[in-house]
């Protein structure tokens, strides 16, 4: 067990870092003893939450990447038991060759399984298959009272609060997950270009049910007639017969390599008003108008950005944030409003991602709900951004939608309860398992996800 000194932790957006003790346990027992001795702490995985979810100013950050073992795997049923610090990349390298893949994957393989469960992540198959919590069979959770095993039928309140609970119920140290059987490590992809936002949404709404995976990459910068022009990519795992003959002998090979890393942080953001139009035009026109059954590696389809290491450095010293929101079906106008409001504020957003969600899960703080989700990466440092995003929040909340906590770094706290009506239920469960409130993050303090610490406030005598 290594116990370090105060260290600055930042989210993936590389902004608003805070100092905390860095603790790096190597097994559940060490986690339990650290939790016992920490007055305030939060678990951290690979630091891919964009904002302050895995920061604990003045407290302790429990770095779970030391818990990376694959513990058990039943190749017959596809149930795998792994330590929480195991990344999806490591998990896939082990399981894909054996014919199984994670049932839900976000846009990067460099998240830990613990972090994925704590954020109840969704993927390109959400419209059909829901978020990751649906496939979790058991969790080992270190609470204030020590390690506990929980599952959908075993302490379900705590289990569902933990899925999507942003680490505030305790430290996840082990996860049992039902994997999905696959025949090949390739995806058969259909690509379509949509000339504007409406045709993109229409395409997604009418065709999504025919595909397991579906996502649209939206140009959020172009105004006017081409506003929201998109590339829609949809597909499913390829069958052996879909592969070219040379690949048929090794249908399950999976060995993604990271070719390039961004070697240093440039002095200014490389994503700016000069580079974006060029990039977006190239990207849009490079895509085919309509192409069927193209065989892509899983890596190319699910994790295109993973090929460029440390890409978040491209946003320069001020970093960036991601605004991801969801609004119910029928409220499509909020998607357009969000894109237009950010354009009006002069905040150049790189590519956005648009997707239709299916049914939400039972977790009180889970993000997905049936509707449209839009995610935009935005460089920080513009004076117009804060108010523009506040305006977007207002529209999203009015539409009955919400923003994604794993991406958030700036939500107005007063809107939290409106966006997540089951917040009080969550706080109640946290309070029951953690009466002293030791699991706290900068996120939870900023927007009030945990009960307020006991105040012994007295007025000062002037």
């Amino acid at each position, binding site marked *: 067990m290594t116990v370090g000194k*105060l260290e*600055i932790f930042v989210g993936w*957006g590389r*902004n*608003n*870092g*805070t*100092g*905390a003790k860095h603790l790096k346990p190597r097994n559940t027992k060490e986690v339990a003893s650290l939790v016992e001795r920490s007055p305030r702490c939060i678990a951290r995985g690979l630091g891919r939450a964009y*904002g*302050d979810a895995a920061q604990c*100013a*003045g*407290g302790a950050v429990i770095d779970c990447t030391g818990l990376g073992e694959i513990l058990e795997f039943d190749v017959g049923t596809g149930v795998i038991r792994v330590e929480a610090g195991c990344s999806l990349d490591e998990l896939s390298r082990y399981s894909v060759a054996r014919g199984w893949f994670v049932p839900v994957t976000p846009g990067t393989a460099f998240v830990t399984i613990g972090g994925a469960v704590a954020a109840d992540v969704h993927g390109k198959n959400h419209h059909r298959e829901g978020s990751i919590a649906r496939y979790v069979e058991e969790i080992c959770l270190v609470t204030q009272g020590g390690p506990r095993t929980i599952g959908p039928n075993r302490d379900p309140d705590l289990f569902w609060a933990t899925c999507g609970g942003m680490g505030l119920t305790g430290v996840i140290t082990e996860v049992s997950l039902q994997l999905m059987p696959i025949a090949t490590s390739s995806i058969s992809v259909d690509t379509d270009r949509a000339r504007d936002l409406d045709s993109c949404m229409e395409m997604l709404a009418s065709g999504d049910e025919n595909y397991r995976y579906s996502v649209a990459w939206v140009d959020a910068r172009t105004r006017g007639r081409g506003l929201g022009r998109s590339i829609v990519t949809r597909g499913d795992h390829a069958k052996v017969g879909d592969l070219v003959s040379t690949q048929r002998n090794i249908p399950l090979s999976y060995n993604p390599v990271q070719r390039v890393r961004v070697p240093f942080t440039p002095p200014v953001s490389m994503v700016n008003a000069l580079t974006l139009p060029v990039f977006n035009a190239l990207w849009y026109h490079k895509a085919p108008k309509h192409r069927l059954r193209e065989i892509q590696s899983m890596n190319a389809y699910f994790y295109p950005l993973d090929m460029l290491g440390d890409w978040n450095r491209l946003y320069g010293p*001020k*970093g960036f*944030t991601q605004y991801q929101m969801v609004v119910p079906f029928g409220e499509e106008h909020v998607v357009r409003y969000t894109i237009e409001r950010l354009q009006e504020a002069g905040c150049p957003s790189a590519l956005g991602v648009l997707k239709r969600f299916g049914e939400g899960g039972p977790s009180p703080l889970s993000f997905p709900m049936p509707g449209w989700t839009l995610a935009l990466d935005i460089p*920080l*440092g*513009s*004076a117009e*951004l*804060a108010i523009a*995003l*506040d305006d977007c929040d207002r529209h999203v909340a009015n539409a009955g939608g919400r923003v994604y906590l794993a991406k958030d*770094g*700036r939500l*107005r*706290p007063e809107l939290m309860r409106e966006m997540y009506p089951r917040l009080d239920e969550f706080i109640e469960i946290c309070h029951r398992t953690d009466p002293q409130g030791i699991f706290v993050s*900068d996120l939870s*303090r*900023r927007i009030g996800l945990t009960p307020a*610490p006991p*105040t*012994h*406030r*007295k*007025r*000062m*005598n*002037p």
Partner: protein
Amino acid sequence: MNDVTGMPQTAVVIGGGSDIALATLRSLAKRRLRRVVLLGRHEEVLNGAAAQLRSAGIEDVSIAIYDVNDVGRAAEIVEKTVEILGTVDLVFVAAGFLGDAKLEVIDPEIVSRTISTNFTGPAAVMTAFAHRLAVQGYGRFVVLSSVAGVRVRKSNFVYGSAKAGLDGFAQGLDDALVGTGLSVMIVRPGFVHSKMTFGLKAAPMAVTPEAVGQAIVRGLETGASVVWAPSSLFWVFAVLVHLPRRLWRLIPG
């Protein structure tokens, strides 16, 4: 907590009666600011300021008497502030005193007092806050410097030299704080129409406290380390600092 757009939820003001500080806090109240502690010498001034902030929407405003020259109490007042606010997102250093600079008028007492109120006192209490906030793991200082300290002028050289000292201290502190989660933003206003300058003839490019407040909010949002108000003063002083002394001393007012 501060958010990624630099907006604080709690703040303490040293020199709680400052027009610039109050204008800034009123702007921040529209965003995330919800709890404030005002420190200052005069209870009635602080009460008036607190009432102003409450009507701007900040319900939770506390006041405490603190003379910035009372260096011996610095650590104590920091503890009190932390006790009230829980965590301190923003430390606004606005204590200051213009004073006189006519050679016939000033005496050792006045010079010492002016420098202490504008420089050594604020520097001392900033140090106390820096120590405490390092334990907290984050925090932002906003320090009211002045263009008077960028190049010291005959007409207000006592005040100006003290601000020059404070400006230098703030820069050094900011550098020393790298890696602690804390940072310092220096604000260099020109002539501001405020209580401090009441009755004085306005210099060119004079601004209101509200304009300085807006520049400060913008500075927090953009992650600036130095803010000029108005921003064009940056260019003006880029030239003025190179003016020969013989010409510089001829500038009136």
